[in-house]
């Protein structure tokens, strides 16, 4: 079994490495994306500009305090005080307000935006709130963005890199030829996963290393843990692509299906901005997407320096998703285009 798996893995890797145009794009795209983002945000080291209100519902009672009617400020509710305070310390929330019990606001003493918001709050004319200070160094947007961009690139590379290859093999009859040998579906699929995993992780590591040094990206946690999260995420997304294309033999349909999976992840998994404060339904959908768990875990490791215990839930979700998708992919897998 291992010999057959390695044979397919080797052949697929050779095919990929000799396809110069494909190889170039797989390396160039993430570099161009990160450079583009770096250029756009080079002058803009501001942390995110947000005011969070502690509360159990998403509804904000604007009449509770005149400050809440201030224009050009994004107000939203959060449930967990400790989590929100941590974000204030990281400058990811500019101000946190509690309007039940003792009316309190928290700002980061080192945050210029917190300072401005405090002045606006005090000048708004409402009932006085108790001040509480939080300290902590800011997180640049590029520090927050880099895992998102790399994760998004990894996601598209896994979806299309495997999905299209399998559909092409099925359409041109190569899978039918393999089916005439003792090769099992699970061996073929494992080889495809392993091949794309090697390609994707090599690309991600190279770009992370290069861009990380170039942009002086913050990395407070374990590289090993980050690598593990990336690998688990890649496996689950590759396996998802194999499920989506398990019976497809049309590139047009495959493109539609893979985009149908990819775009929600790009928009809802927190690639460009945090989903915090958005519609609860969308947040629930985001939790069903593997990229969400990759990015939550990666940012927890890189930005907050968290260890295994903090990201265990994300890791478990990725493991379960990977196993379920692989199982489904093997069961649904079809060798032939016309059967």
């Amino acid at each position, binding site marked *: 079994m291992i010999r*057959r798996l390695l044979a397919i893995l*080797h*052949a*697929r890797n*050779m*095919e990929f490495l*000799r396809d110069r145009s494909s190889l170039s794009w797989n390396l160039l795209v993430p570099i161009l994306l990160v450079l583009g983002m770096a250029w756009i945000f080079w002058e803009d080291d501001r942390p995110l500009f947000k005011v969070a209100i502690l509360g159990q519902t998403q509804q904000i009672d604007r009449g509770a305090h005149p400050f809440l009617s201030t224009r050009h400020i994004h107000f939203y509710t959060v449930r967990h005080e400790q989590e929100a305070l941590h974000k204030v310390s990281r400058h990811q929330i500019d101000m946190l307000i509690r309007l039940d019990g003792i009316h309190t606001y928290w700002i980061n003493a080192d945050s210029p935006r917190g300072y401005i918001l405090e002045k606006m709050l005090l000048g708004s004319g409402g009932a006085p709130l108790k001040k509480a200070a939080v300290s902590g160094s800011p997180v640049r947007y590029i520090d927050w963005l880099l895992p998102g961009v790399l994760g998004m690139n990894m996601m598209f590379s896994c979806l299309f890199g495997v999905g299209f290859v399998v559909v092409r093999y099925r359409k041109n009859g190569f899978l039918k*030829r393999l089916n005439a040998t*003792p090769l099992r579906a699970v061996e073929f699929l494992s080889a495809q996963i392993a091949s794309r995993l090697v390609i994707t992780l090599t690309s991600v590591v190279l770009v992370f290393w290069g861009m990380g040094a170039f942009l002086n990206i913050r990395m407070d946690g374990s590289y090993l843990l980050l690598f593990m999260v990336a690998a688990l995420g890649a496996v689950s997304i590759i396996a998802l692509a194999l499920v989506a294309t398990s019976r497809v033999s049309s590139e047009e349909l495959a493109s539609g299906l893979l985009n149908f999976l990819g775009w929600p992840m790009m928009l809802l998994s927190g690639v460009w901005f945090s989903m915090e404060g958005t519609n609860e339904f969308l947040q629930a959908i985001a939790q069903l997407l593997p990229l969400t768990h990759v990015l939550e875990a990666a940012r927890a490791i890189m930005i907050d320096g968290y260890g295994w215990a903090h990201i265990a839930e994300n890791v478990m979700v990725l493991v379960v998703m990977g196993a379920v998708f692989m199982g489904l992919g093997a069961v649904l897998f079809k060798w032939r285009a016309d*059967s």
Partner: protein
Amino acid sequence: MTQPPILDVRDLHKRYPGVVAVDGVSFSIAKGTCFGLLGPNGAGKTTTVEIMEGITEATAGEVRYRGAPHDRRFREEIGIQFQTTALQDFLTVKETLELFHRLYEHTANLNEIVEVCALEELLARDNRKLSGGQRQRLLLALALLNDPKVLFLDEPTTGLDPQSRRNFWQLIERIKQQKKTIVLTTHYMEEAYRLCDEIIIMDHGKIIAEGSPAELLAEHFDETILQLPAEDFTASADRFPFTVLYGNGCVEMSIRDVDEAIKQLQQQGISLQRLEIRPRTLDDLFLELTGKELRP
């Protein structure tokens, strides 16, 4: 059939929506024979063979290999050359051979396969740069890598030029000498006549004739064909006691006694300078059985 069959096909049916591809086909293949399935496109021969290979599931009926239904051992012991097969891009002939070689537990010597299929000069060539004949030789080599007991060849020479086709037949004859069982589908009658020990002729999913090529011809024909250009046939057809058919600028006469026929033609003053005498072929047999040409 003196030997027990290596493959036994029993009452095979395959239906697709609106189409009956195979309609109650039964036959047996003796070990070491070259067995041909003949028929025009759409006759059901490829579907029958793919069910025998275990690639397609039958709607009803069964295929027994060495007395038992297919199991995993079967895939290890057969070699298949499909009608059309794509190979992995960017791999050389040698890498492609090595890839498939590693998919089997029991394998033939790779160098011997390369030599048998005359691939020595092509080992470093990209798959995509092979000619039709070279590509068919590579596909045959892939089918032989596991030293198969049964070799399935599905229209292996379709699309090849006559020279490449004859070269390919020589390869098959070398493989036949190794006493492998070969299952060949073709719509080239000459190919079947030259290579096959036993044949079945299929049309509309059914077997319409079976036996050895010589037996089938002897069973259906006791006549020889005399052929003349139409302009040389200067007498009236009703002066002769045999059938005379006009077509394609020729006159064809079905004759039992050639000597007598030649005398009669000479008596009518017909020039025999361009006379051709040929035996009945499988093409004629197919025409006789179905009323249509075998080739599409």
